[in-house]
Every structure is written in C-alpha cells, then in structure tokens.
C-alpha cells in the first residue's frame, strides 16, 4: 500500500512533469504550422490535470464531501474550457 508521503511525492513529480510538458508544447507550437486552437486545448487540458492533482492530493478533497470536491474540480475544468472557447 502506498504511503502518504509517497502519494504526495508522486503527485509533486507528476505536477513538475506536466509543467515541463506545457512549456515544451508552447515552444514547439511557436514554430509549428499546427492549429493554435489545438495547442490551446492541449495547454488547457494540462491545466485541468494539474488542478485535479492539487485538489485531490494536496488539498485532500478526494475524501471530502462530494459537493466541495465537485465545485473545486468544476473550477479547473470550466475556467480553462471558457478560455478555450474565447480563443475559437
């Protein structure tokens, strides 16, 4: 069974990896003919994935009442989704 500190360490590693991935994607797409919308959608997806890690692991909302967890998860999904729609 995974220990608490290991869970936090794994989450930290995943967050760093996603951060580096978003910057690398940004660098790649600056000199690429791919659609800007696809690039923005990828970055927004990474934001949602990172947000979920912080909410569930660091904030410990995975075992919180469902309403509060859903409100917080909705934030990291809805805000990036609206931003993507604006750039359409």
């Amino acid at each position, binding site marked *: 069974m995974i220990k608490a500190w290991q869970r936090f360490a794994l989450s930290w590693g995943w967050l760093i990896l996603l951060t580096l991935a978003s910057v690398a994607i*940004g660098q790649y797409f600056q000199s690429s003919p791919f659609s800007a919308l696809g690039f*923005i959608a990828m970055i927004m997806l990474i934001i949602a994935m990172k947000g979920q890690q912080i909410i569930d692991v660091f904030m410990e909302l995975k075992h919180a009442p469902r309403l509060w967890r859903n*409100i917080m998860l909705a934030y*990291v999904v809805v805000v990036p989704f609206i931003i993507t729609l604006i750039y359409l």
Partner: protein
Amino acid sequence: MANNSLSSTDALIANAPVCRPHELKRLPGDLAMWFFILAELTVFAIFFIGFAIAENLNLVMFAEGKTQLHKVAGLINTIALITSSYFVAISLHAMRAGNNQQAVIRLGLALMFASVYIVLKLWEYQALFAQGIDIETNTFFTLYFLITAFHFMHILLGMVILAYMAKNAYQGKYNDPRSENEFSGFESGACYWHMVDLLWIILFPLIYVI
C-alpha cells in the same frame, strides 16, 4: 431474560458497519475558509477570462507583450510554488503524526521556496521597469501587472499565514486533544496556500505560454 437482551445488543454491535476515521468524508479546515477560497477563485476567474477576451481583441499587441516576458523565470516560479505546496502538504501529514519539529522544518522549506518566487517576481518587475515598461504601457501590460501583482499579494499573505502556522506548531498549539478538530487552523492555512498554487497553475500558461 437479561442475558438474552445483552447478547442481542452484543450481536448488534458486532454486526454494525465499521466506520474508520480516515473513511469519513470530511472537509479539511474551516468551512469559512472554503467560502473565502471560492470568493478568491471567482475573482481570479473574472481576471483570467477578461485577459483571454482582451487578448482575442488585441492579438498582435498581446503576442508582442508576451515576447517581453521571461518564460524561464515563470517556469522556475511554477516549480517553486508546486514544491512549496508539496512541503505544506507533508507538513500537515507530520502534524497529524504528532511530529511538530518535522512539521516546522517542512513549513520552513515551503517558505524558502515561496521566497524564490518573491525574489524572481520582483526581479521580473525590475527588468521590465528597466526597459521602460510599466502598467500604463498598453492593455497587455496593464492586465499583466494587475493580475500578477494581485497574485503576488496573495503569496505574501500566504507566507504570513505559513509563518504563523510554523510559530503555532513550534509552540505545540495544534496538539490540544480537547479541541474538536485540533488541526483545523493548520488545514485552513494549508488549503489557502494550495489555492494560491492552483491560481498560478492557470495564470502561468495563460500569460506566459499560450
């Protein structure tokens, strides 16, 4: 008769579902702090959406503005805040395990990484001012300074809260077993800090990367 009654009670207790403390659905920290967090998130959501709309209306200006920003500094700040959040999370874990000394050390490390953010952000501002760029330069920099400075103030407040938590942990103020939820104050402060991290995770790609 009395024996029968006793044995049926025993049977009820034996068959009752076991509810372990870690399986209970519980909101960490004070409810008031969570309403405060929601209010803060709403304000920042308006800022983020406003920034995206303004960018859509001024694509060239925003693209030029973004080239003036220091992406590497933004990346280092992101790593510093994530690492700081990690130390706050494991500090709470140490508190629950009754290891106050370890909790204080971890909070100290969280504050150290938060200081990296403060120093780099001030350096970024100073570098922009040296180029003659300020809040009145154009719409991009007005929004850039407004959003990042507002977030910067939240970091400063968060650092004061973390320092206060470290002081209380050092003095053993979170270990009062008479309290209904002895770590509630610690959890509230920790969740505030994670919220500040969460906001930067949206802010950094929106302003620096896209």
